[in-house]
């Protein structure tokens, strides 16, 4: 298997306290991998270790099949990142910040800088001081900087942080485009689960410094159980009618007055029409689709397996 990121029993201790333990992460080439986890779960710490910002206390990191250590950091040439929030030399102009970044990576292509700024819809800002940028602009500039050199792996910690809805969509589209057209592998983290759901191929759930589970979005979608939730004025009669009039048997009553129908061959409209004909008042009828949010909630509160 062609892994871009591979960690083996990765751990980080800070002042004797283990904040990340036994992480065995595998990210495939061309994949968009999403990290989910509450604040303090260890997502950012792992990203910091993968980008050389902080050193692991134990364990190993392999990027593109090569070890990443304090002395062997050459693979970082192939990695772009934004960790926590985009950091710049605020007293310098945007262009100077980008040029310095490129020079550290031994990359000299003025056109690529312009192209990256265009991609994030930042035009004509080259000569503006970064301290005059809004948070959203800094985020866009950070993403531009991360991708100027066309890295093969982009590690973005909360990439849509500080962006307006249009900006969020732009970044989502940009990530998809870079992934599809340039084959860039992504490691993302976000608190906005709906955002992640739309973009990632696979997720890893972090909790208390441990990687609980890794699962593809396709698997989550396959596992999901959809149902119609129905609240009426007469539960007993409704159940009787559903069984006899619509031949629905796969259902259950929860909390006394709510009926959950798992047989989705009958539409909400048909159910509503039938109940109306029999003078049953419908207080609520809702089709429920289990989502990434449900999966995440289940992992965090239901105790997932440690990977």
């Amino acid at each position, binding site marked *: 298997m062609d892994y871009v990121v591979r960690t083996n029993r990765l751990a980080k201790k800070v002042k004797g306290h283990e904040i990340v333990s036994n992480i065995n992460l595998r990210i495939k080439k061309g994949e968009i991998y999403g990290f989910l986890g509450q604040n303090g779960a260890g997502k950012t710490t792992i990203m*910091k270790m993968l*980008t*050389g*910002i*902080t*050193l692991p206390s134990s364990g190993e990191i392999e990027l593109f099949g090569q070890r990443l250590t*304090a*002395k062997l*950091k*050459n*693979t*970082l*040439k192939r*990695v772009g*990142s934004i*960790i926590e929030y985009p*950091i*710049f*030399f*605020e*007293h*310098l102009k945007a262009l*100077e910040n980008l040029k*310095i*970044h490129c*020079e*550290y*990576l031994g990359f000299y292509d003025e056109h690529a800088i312009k192209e990256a700024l265009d991609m994030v819809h930042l035009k004509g800002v080259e000569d503006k001081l970064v301290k005059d940028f809004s948070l959203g602009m800094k985020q866009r500039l950070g993403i531009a900087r991360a991708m100027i050199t066309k890295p093969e792996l982009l590690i973005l910690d909360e990439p849509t942080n500080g962006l307006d809805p249009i900006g969020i969509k732009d970044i989502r589209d940009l990530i998809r485009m870079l992934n599809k057209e340039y084959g860039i592998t992504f490691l993302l983290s976000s608190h906005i689960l709906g955002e992640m759901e739309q973009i990632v191929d696979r997720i890893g759930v972090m909790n208390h410094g441990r990687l609980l589970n890794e699962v593809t979005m396709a698997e989550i979608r396959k596992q999901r159980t959809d149902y119609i939730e129905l609240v009426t004025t007469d539960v007993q009669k409704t159940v009787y009618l559903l069984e006899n009039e619509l031949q629905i048997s796969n259902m259950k009553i929860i909390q006394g007055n709510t009926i959950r129908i798992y047989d989705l061959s009958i539409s909400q409209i048909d159910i509503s029409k039938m109940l109306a004909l029999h003078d049953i008042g419908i207080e609520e009828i809702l089709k429920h689709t289990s989502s990434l949010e449900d999966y995440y909630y289940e992992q965090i509160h239901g105790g997932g397996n440690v990977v």
Partner: protein
Amino acid sequence: MGVATLFKLMGLEWRKLKQSMIMIELAIYLLVMLFLPTFFVKTVNPDFGKSFDSFFVLMQSIQMGWVLFGASLINQVFIEEYKNKTIFLSFTYPLSRQKLFLAKVLLISLLVILATIVSFLLSGIATYVLDGMFSIFTWQLTSSDITTYLGGMIVRSVIITLISFIPLFTFGILEKAVVPAVICSIASMQLPNFSPMFNIDPNHVIAVLCILGALSLTLSLMTAERVGDI
């Protein structure tokens, strides 16, 4: 690592700095240093003007002020980078922290040593010109004095550069604290002046300070990969 790479890294470090602030600071220091020797001889202690040797002792002591310039650079090159977290950006580049720190300390060394040499030269010339105008000294400058001055200038500039690194490891990298770093520098540059009060040879104090500076520098580079991590 090649010399060219090292120069490139030093250049990048320079580009990241608030250069206008450094240039202003440098100009103020140089301006003060121009007149300070004459001011001392005329108003504080005329004994310093009795011979070239006593004047040169004064000049060397005054130039110790550049240790403070070193502290200011440590603040910009290390402490501010940690505080603004821009140093973490540097950690994401494909170069070891040791090389990164080496480029930083070499840049500080270069700036301090050049500033001190320029200051020695300008102060010497300014004092000579002022002597011509106001007859401050009773002795005549000889070519032997000039040779002593230039030789002493090089040695003292190296000493000042080494001493300016005393706060680097403890206050620049471990504590990341500006005020203690500045206080440490002020104490370092003043210690040789006060040592005769305790019957200690100032040259011995300077030797110890140089050792401390070298130790701080070595520790900063040797522990770069681990110390200062987050």
